[in-house]
């Protein structure tokens, strides 16, 4: 869809492409392509490469180290990275907490945290959800009691992605238990090495353990780690939620996945030919491919509006809904493609360095787990029901 990409944008895209081709380590690219488990080091290695190039934080203002791109350049960059099979950039530091610190943080907080986020020296995670408060974020109970120059934090967060790798966590905590639901909440930065922080993995149905429970048992947090005014955490959280959603659909990665579907369907046999030649399955692929194209076109229209100066609003919810559904459709196609070889469960084969011959075709092992795992996309980040509620309120005016 480069029909009228300007020569400048075309040159930019070629530069991005050439860079990824030259710099993305082959072992990482291979893991992503095969759907294998990425380790901490894989993410960090790639992020440091982007950092060196100055491309790690497309959403940051230039003064903090962002590249100063236009919305369309960012769109192109995101798409190329996604298509290339590079790992996703872990968003908790760069995309989530950093803008919050820039907007609400003290000078000291900025000096302390932003450079280390930019250089991927420090890994962040997000402490929002709690066992009793999933979609209902404001129902959180984790308590931070102010005692002189520090808070004492007690409580539990859950669904914390990759907390096992994290150095810091940003949390919503209740600082005024007497206040009404959305009041009395504060936004706190907590060092994961603090005494009293415990991380416990949650095994998900695919057998993976990407998400965790994080327990706080009398954890002492300096008051200087408060971001924004005390009891104003809800405002901070809302800013964060509304701040960065353009790559939420991850079109590039969806294209990468679709290419993978076609690759696998070309390898699978059906009726004497390949499954990709089977008219019925081809039609099934087309069904999903059309949804991908529709989402991409919708995003490009939003980017055009952004370029025209309009800030993206509730469209983010639209993109979240359709983007998450698309990811589910793509993994569903993959289990359909692979037929009986979706059955064998072989978690080890999804780890790097597993050397036994595969059970069935070598691409098969991760496919059913990926389908199971991807059911989360319509639940997390504000469930799709919550997103529909946002659209009902802010777009439809109900």
């Amino acid at each position, binding site marked *: *869809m*480069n*029909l*009228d*990409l300007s020569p400048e944008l075309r040159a930019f895209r070629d530069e991005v492409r050439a860079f990824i081709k030259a710099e993305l380590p082959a072992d990482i690219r291979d893991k992503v392509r095969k759907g294998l488990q990425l380790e901490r080091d894989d993410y960090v290695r790639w992020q440091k490469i982007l950092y060196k190039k100055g491309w790690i934080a497309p959403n940051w203002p230039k003064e903090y180290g962002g590249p100063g791109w236009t919305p*369309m350049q960012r769109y192109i960059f995101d798409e190329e990275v996604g298509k290339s099979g590079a790992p996703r950039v872990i968003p908790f530091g760069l995309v989530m907490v950093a803008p919050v610190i820039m907007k609400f943080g003290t000078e000291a907080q900025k000096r302390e945290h932003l450079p280390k986020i930019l250089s991927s020296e420090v890994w962040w995670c997000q402490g929002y959800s709690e066992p009793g408060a999933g979609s209902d974020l404001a129902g959180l109970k984790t308590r931070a009691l102010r005692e002189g120059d520090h808070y004492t934090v007690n409580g539990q967060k859950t669904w914390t992605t990759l907390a096992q790798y994290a150095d810091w966590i940003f949390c919503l905590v209740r600082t005024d238990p007497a206040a009404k639901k959305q009041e009395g909440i504060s936004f706190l930065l907590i060092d994961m090495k603090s005494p009293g922080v415990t991380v416990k993995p949650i095994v998900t149905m695919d057998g993976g353990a990407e998400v965790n429970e994080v327990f706080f048992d009398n954890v002492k947090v300096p008051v200087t780690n408060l971001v924004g005014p005390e009891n104003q955490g809800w405002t901070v959280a809302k800013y964060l939620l509304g701040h960065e959603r353009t790559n939420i659909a991850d079109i590039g990665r969806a*294209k990468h996945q679709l290419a993978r579907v*076609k690759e696998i369907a070309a390898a699978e046999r059906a009726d004497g030919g390949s499954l990709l030649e089977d*008219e019925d399955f*081809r*039609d099934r*692929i*087309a*069904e999903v*491919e*059309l*949804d*991908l*194209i*529709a*989402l991409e*076109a*919708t995003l*490009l*229209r939003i*980017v*055009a*509006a952004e*370029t*025209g100066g309009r800030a993206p609003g509730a*469209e983010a919810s*639209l993109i979240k*809904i*359709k983007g998450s559904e698309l990811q589910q459709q793509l993994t569903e196609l993959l289990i359909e493609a692979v037929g009986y070889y979706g059955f064998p469960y072989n978690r080890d084969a999804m780890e790097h360095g597993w050397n036994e011959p595969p059970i069935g075709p070598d691409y098969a092992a991760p496919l059913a787990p990926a389908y199971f795992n991807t059911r989360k996309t319509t639940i997390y980040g504000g469930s799709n*029901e919550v997103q*529909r*509620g946002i*659209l*009902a309120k802010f*777009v*439809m*005016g*109900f």
Partner: protein
Amino acid sequence: MNFAFTDEQKLLADSVARFVSKDYPFEARRKLMASEEGWSRAHWKSFAELGWLAAPFAEDHGGLGGGPVEAAIVMEAFGKGLVLEPYLPTVVLGGGLLAAGGRRDLLKALVEGALQLSLAWVEPKARFDLAHVETRALRKDGGFALSGQKGVAFNGAAADWIIVPARTAGGIKDKQGITLFLVPKGAPGLTLRPYRTVDGVRAAEVALEGVTLKAEHVLGEVDWGHPLLEAAIDRGIAAVSAEAAGIMGHIVATTRDYLKTRKQFGVPLASFQVLQHRAVDVYVLSEQATAMAYRAAVLVAAREPADRARAVSAAKAWIGKAGRQVGQEAIQMHGGMGMTEEMPVSHYFKRLTMIDTLFGDHRFHRRRFAALGGHVEKD
């Protein structure tokens, strides 16, 4: 791909939107639909004056230098008002073929508003296959004699010329050997049976019994009409996709308003979460449909016929299916009222339904898209 309108495009969009909201109230449309011709010559004159008939044509064809995007802008706005005037058959389909065939003389009359056209591409046994042409054109005295049946020729009765694909060579389903003819109104041997369609526009069955034509009545090259025809239909698809997007946009707005106003069980329907979410789904589909329609409008100008075909089939397949859901949900959410002829929404529903059939339904176009290998990334 850049989805931003140019300033000229914005002006065009505003001007058509203004016409629809001010000069095309639903009651007036209802009268027009019931009138003998089914649309207004006076409106058509305004369209000419406002430059809308010239909008999608290149300047050296007497146009204003626009293209399919301009046609889409007009059609989207027309969709919002269910405009009855034959912009699709005369300007998009017919005009596009006149331009492709180099008939600047007729195009001049067209952009001045002095010419009506029809494209009679439907054959009773062809379903959606454009290459299936049984109508025959036999060579006769340096000219041709046409015989055959064409169905559902939109704007057939009003047309000064009907463009008729007929077979000059090859077998019934061959792409080669199809020639496009300009058949003048009232030609001996030409019989029309005009009627209203279920979605309120006009069409006609066309019978040709030895209609005698001269060589200059050929549009384009003898035997090579199929590529022109396919390109014209693809432009037609981009245009009705935009019309469908306009209809969906209108449906979203009226359904939203209805849910807010109409009370049941003592509260507005909009207070029911189930209806809220379904209205949101309709909104989401409508937004995507608009994006798909303009994507098709941009890409229908692609140099490669396969690229063009992929883009319009993608739009038509997606919009046809989405349109079913949007229309059905709209009626359901309007309840009994939505079932009535009196409520405008039923008319939008009917048009949206029939747009799925027009030029091939969503299953046909999904297959066409898939057969072309799906989306192909260029570069």
